[in-house]
C-alpha cells in the first residue's frame, strides 16, 4: 500500500514537473507582449479556419497553429488542435505527438482525448496502446445516449485487432515511388491504366492545371487528368496534361479506363451530387465527357467505376439507399449491364452482402481476367480506414469472401485506388510516404506472391552395384502461382504494304458457343489494339476493315493457363489478286475432313466476303503438318479444302468462283529444320499447329 501511495505521489510530481500547461493568456506573457499578440492572432485565425462545418480548413489552420505553438508549446488547446489538423491531412502519423502533448499538459482538456490518442497510436500501428486508449474512451461513453460514438470506438478496437493479426504476416511486395516523371511535389492519386499497364492516367493537383486556380477550401490546385506511357521504353514518359475537353477549370478526376484505353470515365462533382461521365478516344483526342445514363448516375453520389474486359458490364460505387435497409450514405458496389438493343446501361444490381459490408466500399477495380475485383472497404477486417480487398466471382455467379490484401499494402490509414495489371504481379496505388515527392504520390507495388523456396537435392546409391548415383527426386516447391489466368493480345493493325495504321473492327468469338462476346476497335491514328482473353475459352478473333481481306486468329487459353502477353501486329491485306490469308477458325476432327460446328462463324465471314465482292474468285487450300504419311496428308488436305468449298456452294456461292487444292505437307510455314531447332516441346507443337491450316487465296477479282 505504501508503495502504491509513493508511486502515485511520484507520478503526480512528475506530471506537474514536466507538463505544466501555459494557456494563451496575456498574463502569462507579460515580458513579450508583441510576440504574444502575433501568436494570439495566429491562434484566432486558425480557430476560425476550423469553424466551417462539415469541412474545416485543416491544412490552412495547421500552419497558423504551428506558428502559435512555436511561440507557446505548452498550450494544451493548440497541441490538441494541431493533432486534429494532422489527423485530417496526409501526414496523419504526426498527430500522435501533439495529442500526447495536449494530454500531458491537460488530461481533462477534451472528453475525446483518449479517442484521439487511440487514433494516434492506431496510425502508428502501436496496437495495444491504441486499444487501451479506445477502451478508456469507450468506458466514458453512455451507449444509450451516444450509440454512434460507442459503435465507432468499438469498430476502431476491431480494426486494431485485425491490424495485429495482419502485420504478423506481411505480404511480400516491393513498393516503389513511380518517380519524378509521374509524381510532383503536389498530390497525385487515382491512377488508372490499360490492362497491361502500358499507358496510365491519373489525377494531379499540380501547378499548370487548367485555369491554374486553387480550390478555396483546400488551397490546392484544382484537379486535372494527366497521362504517361511506356510504349517504346521501360521508363515512363513525362506526365502530360490531357487537356480539354477532359480537363476544365474545375475539378477533373479520372476514375476508370477501359482495358484497351479507348474509353475513360471521369468523376464530376455536379454541385455535390457526384456523377460519372464517359469520354471516347479517337487517336490522341478525347471526346467531351458525356454523363452516363440514369441507371448509373442516380440522384445520389457516384464516385468510382470500372469496365469489365469485354466492356459489357460496369461496376460502380453509389451511395443510393437500399430499399429495405441501410444507410443512405453507405457507399456500395453495384454492377450495370449494357443493353445491346437499347444501347444503354441497365439492369443494375447491388453486389451481395458478403461483398458490400455495412460500412463504405469505394475504389472498385475489375481485373482484366473479368472475374476478380479489387475494392476498398472500411468494413470486413479492415485495419483502419479503407483497406484494399480482393474477391473472385465463382462460376455459379456467387462471390468469394473478400480477402484483405494485407500489410504493407494496407495500413491503418485509407488505402484506395489500388489497380492490378493483367499480369497479376504489377499493381499501383496512391500513398503518402515520407520519402515521396510531396503530398500523395503514385507507387508501383510489385506483388511477389508466396515466398519462393529454393530447390536443393541429395543423391543416393539406391542399388549397391550401380556406378552412377541416383538423384533423389527434386521436389519442386508446391507454390500456387498467383499470377493471372489470362492472355493479353496487343499490337498494331496496319496496311500490309504501306504499314500505315488502320482503324479496324476486332471481333472476339467464343468458339465453343459460336457467339461474338466482345467487339473492339483499333486506334485510328496508331492502329494500336489490346484485347484481354481470360482463361477457359477457345477464342476466335477476326480483324476487319473496309476494302481489306479479314484476318483471323485463334487462341486457346486454358482455364489454368498462366499469364501471357502476346504482341501480334496484324497486317491487313487489300482484296487483290494473289493475296492469301489463313483461316484460323476453321476446325476439323482429327484425321477427318468433316467441318466442326465451331467453324461456322469463320465460314460465314468468308461467305459474306464473297457476297460483298461478287467478282472475287478464290482458291481454298488445305495444309497439314509433316507428321504422318505424305499421301494420307495430301488426300486429307484436299478433302478438307473441298469441305470448305462445299459449304460455300451450299450457302449460294457459285461453284465456278471456287477452286480447292490439297498441298499436304508441301508448303509448311515452319520447316522441319526450324522446328528441330526449337528447344521446348510446346514451341514445336505450336509450329506444327501453324502448319496445319486452311488458306484462301484471291485468284481474280
Amino acid at each position: 500500500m505504501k508503495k502504491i501511495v509513493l508511486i502515485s505521489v511520484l507520478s503526480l510530481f512528475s506530471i506537474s514537473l514536466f507538463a505544466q500547461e501555459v494557456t494563451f493568456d496575456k498574463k502569462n506573457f507579460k515580458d513579450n507582449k508583441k510576440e504574444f499578440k502575433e501568436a494570439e492572432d495566429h491562434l484566432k485565425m486558425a480557430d476560425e479556419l476550423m469553424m466551417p462545418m462539415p469541412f474545416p480548413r485543416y491544412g490552412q489552420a495547421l500552419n497558423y497553429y504551428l506558428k502559435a505553438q512555436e511561440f507557446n508549446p505548452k498550450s494544451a488547446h493548440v497541441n490538441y488542435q494541431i493533432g486534429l489538423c494532422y489527423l485530417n491531412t496526409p501526414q496523419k502519423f504526426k498527430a500522435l505527438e501533439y495529442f500526447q502533448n495536449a494530454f500531458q499538459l491537460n488530461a481533462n482538456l477534451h472528453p475525446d482525448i483518449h479517442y484521439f490518442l487511440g487514433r494516434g497510436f492506431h496510425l502508428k500501428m502501436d496496437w495495444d496502446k491504441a486499444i487501451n486508449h479506445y477502451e478508456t474512451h469507450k468506458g466514458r461513453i453512455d451507449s444509450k445516449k451516444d450509440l454512434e460514438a460507442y459503435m465507432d470506438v468499438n469498430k476502431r478496437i476491431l480494426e486494431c485487432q485485425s491490424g495485429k493479426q495482419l502485420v504478423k504476416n506481411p505480404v511480400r511486395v516491393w513498393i516503389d515511388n513511380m518517380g519524378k516523371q509521374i509524381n510532383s511535389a503536389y498530390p497525385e492519386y487515382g491512377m488508372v491504366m490499360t490492362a497491361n499497364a502500358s499507358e496510365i492516367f491519373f489525377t494531379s493537383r499540380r501547378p499548370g492545371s487548367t485555369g491554374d486556380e486553387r480550390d478555396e477550401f483546400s488551397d490546392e490546385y484544382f484537379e486535372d487528368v494527366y497521362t504517361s506511357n511506356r510504349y517504346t521504353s521501360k521508363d515512363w514518359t513525362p506526365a502530360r496534361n490531357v487537356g480539354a475537353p477532359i480537363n476544365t477549370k474545375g475539378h477533373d478526376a479520372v476514375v476508370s479506363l477501359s482495358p484497351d484505353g479507348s474509353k475513360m470515365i471521369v468523376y464530376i462533382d455536379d454541385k455535390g451530387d457526384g456523377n460519372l461521365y464517359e469520354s471516347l478516344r479517337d487517336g490522341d483526342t478525347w471526346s467531351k465527357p458525356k454523363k452516363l445514363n440514369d441507371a448509373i448516375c442516380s440522384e445520389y453520389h457516384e464516385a468510382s467505376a470500372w469496365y469489365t474486359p469485354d466492356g459489357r458490364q460496369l461496376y460502380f460505387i453509389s451511395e443510393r439507399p437500399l430499399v429495405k435497409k441501410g444507410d443512405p450514405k453507405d457507399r456500395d458496389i453495384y454492377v450495370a449491364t449494357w443493353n445491346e438493343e437499347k444501347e444503354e446501361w441497365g439492369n443494375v444490381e447491388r453486389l451481395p452482402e458478403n461483398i458490400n459490408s455495412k460500412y463504405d466500399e469505394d475504389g472498385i477495380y475489375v481485373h482484366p481476367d473479368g472475374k476478380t475485383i479489387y475494392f476498398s472497404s472500411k468494413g470486413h477486417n479492415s485495419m483502419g480506414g479503407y483497406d484494399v480487398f480482393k474477391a473472385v466471382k465463382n462460376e455459379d455467379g456467387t462471390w468469394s469472401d473478400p480477402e484483405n490484401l494485407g500489410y504493407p499494402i494496407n495500413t491503418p490509414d485509407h488505402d484506395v485506388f489500388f489497380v492490378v495489371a493483367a499480369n497479376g504481379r504489377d499493381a499501383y496505388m496512391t500513398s503518402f510516404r515520407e520519402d515521396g515527392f510531396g503530398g500523395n504520390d503514385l507507387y508501383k507495388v510489385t506483388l511477389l506472391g508466396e515466398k519462393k523456396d529454393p530447390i536443393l537435392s541429395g543423391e543416393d546409391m539406391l542399388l549397391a552395384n550401380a556406378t552412377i548415383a541416383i538423384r533423389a527426386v527434386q521436389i519442386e516447391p508446391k507454390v500456387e502461382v498467383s499470377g493471372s489466368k489470362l492472355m493479353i493480345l496487343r499490337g498494331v493493325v496496319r496496311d500490309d504494304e504501306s504499314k500505315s495504321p488502320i482503324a479496324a473492327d476486332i471481333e472476339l468469338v467464343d468458339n465453343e458457343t459460336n457467339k461474338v462476346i466482345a467487339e473492339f476497335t483499333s486506334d485510328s491514328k496508331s492502329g494500336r489494339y489490346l484485347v484481354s482473353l481470360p482463361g477457359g475459352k477457345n477464342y476466335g478473333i477476326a480483324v476487319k476493315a473496309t476494302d481489306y481481306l479479314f484476318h483471323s486468329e485463334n487462341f486457346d487459353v486454358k482455364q489454368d493457363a498462366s499469364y501471357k502477353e502476346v504482341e501480334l501486329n496484324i497486317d491487313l491485306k487489300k482484296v487483290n489478286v494473289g493475296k492469301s490469308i489463313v483461316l484460323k477458325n476453321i476446325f476439323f476432327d482429327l484425321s477427318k475432313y468433316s467441318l466442326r460446328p465451331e467453324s461456322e462463324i469463320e465460314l460465314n465471314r468468308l461467305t459474306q466476303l464473297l457476297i460483298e465482292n461478287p467478282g472475287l474468285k478464290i482458291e481454298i487450300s488445305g495444309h497439314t503438318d509433316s507428321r504422318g504419311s505424305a499421301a494420307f496428308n495430301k488426300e486429307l488436305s484436299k478433302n478438307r479444302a473441298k469441305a470448305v468449298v462445299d459449304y460455300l456452294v451450299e450457302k449460294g456461292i457459285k461453284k465456278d468462283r471456287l477452286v480447292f487444292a490439297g498441298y499436304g505437307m508441301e508448303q509448311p510455314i515452319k520447316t522441319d529444320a526450324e522446328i528441330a531447332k526449337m528447344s521446348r516441346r510446346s514451341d514445336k507443337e505450336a509450329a506444327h499447329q501453324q502448319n496445319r491450316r486452311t488458306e484462301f487465296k484471291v485468284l481474280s477479282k
Partner: protein
Amino acid sequence: MRNLQSFLLLFCFFFILSTYGQEDSVKIVVANNVEIDSTGVDPEAQKAYNEGTTAFENKNYAEAIKQFKKAIEISPDFIIAHSNLAYTYLSDKKVEMAEQQFLHLTTMDETAHLPFYELGTLAELKDSTDLAIKYYSSAIDRMKSDKRYYYQRGILYFKLGQYETAVEDFSKVVLIDPKDADAYNDRGSAYKLTGKIDKAIADYTKAAELNKKSGLAYNNLGSLYREQKEYDRAIKAYDKAILIDQNNYLAWNNRGFAKFEKGEYPAALSDFKRVNLLSPDYAIAYNNIAGVYMEMEEYENVVTYSTKAIERDENLGAAYYNRAIANEMLRNEVQACKDWSQAADLGIRIAEEYYTTNSCGNLIEK
C-alpha cells in the same frame, strides 16, 4: 550331354577370372591348358585348344579364334572350346559373334545356364533390357539356386520401375544367401520406392549390419528418414555412413540436406562446404549452398554459389532456378528472367510459370 555339362563346370573351376573390364564390362576369361588325353577328347582337338588358350593369353585373338575353331571342327562337341571361342570373341570386341556362340552353347546343352547369364549381360550392355530379362529368366529356369541370376534380373526390374517384381527377385537372393548385404540394400530401395517404408528401414538396417565396411545402406537409410521428415534419425544414419567413410561426399551432402530441412542452416552450410573439399566438382553441393544462403536471405551469395554449380553442371536446372530467385530479390529482374527461362528449358516446371507471371517476355525484349 550331361557329361559334357559336368565337364564344363569342372573345367570352369580352372578358369581364372583375370580381369573385370570396367570400360566394357565384359568378362575376359583365361583358360589354362588342359592335359592332353586327360578328357577323352580327340588329342588333335585338345592340342588346337591348348594353342588357342596360349594365343589368348598372348592377346593374339585372331590366332586363338582360329585354334578354337579348329578344335571344334575336329571335335564338334568339345564344349570348352565352344565356350572359350565365345569369350575370345568378346575379348576381340566381336560381340555379335560372341552372342551367336553363347546362343549356340545354350542349344548344345539344354541344361547349360551360364551362357544365358552371359547373354543377359551382353543384352544389358546394348540397353536391351527386355531381352536381358528374358535371358536371365532362361538361366533361372535352368538353375534355380544361383543368386546371381535373380540379382541381375532384380536390378533390371528395378531400373524399369517394376519394384514389386524386383522385390521378388531380391527376396530369392536373400533366401539363397541370407548374408547378401547388397540384396538387402537393393530390396530396401525397391520397398522404399513402393512406399513400404517399414520394410525398407528393416532391409537397410540389415544390410548395414551385414556389411560393416560400407556406408551405403546407412546413407540410404538416412535419406529414407529424411524423406519421412524424421530429420534427427536421418542425421544419425548419415553420421554412421560418414563414420565408416569420412570421404563419403554423398553422405555429407545428404546430411547437409537433412540439416537444411530441419532448419539448421549454419550446420547444413558446414556439411555442404565439406563436400566442396571432398569433391570440388560436385555441382549439387554448390547449389545446395546457394539454397542455404537463400534461407539466410544472403542473395549475393546465392548468386555466387548457384553460378559455381552451373559452371560445373550446365544442365542443373535447380541452380538456374535458385539463381533466378536471388536475382529477383536483388532486383536484377532481367537476369532473373533469363535464369527462369534456362531452368524451364531444363525441366523445372515452376520456373516457366514464374517466367510468364513476371512478364519476362516484355522485360527481356526491352
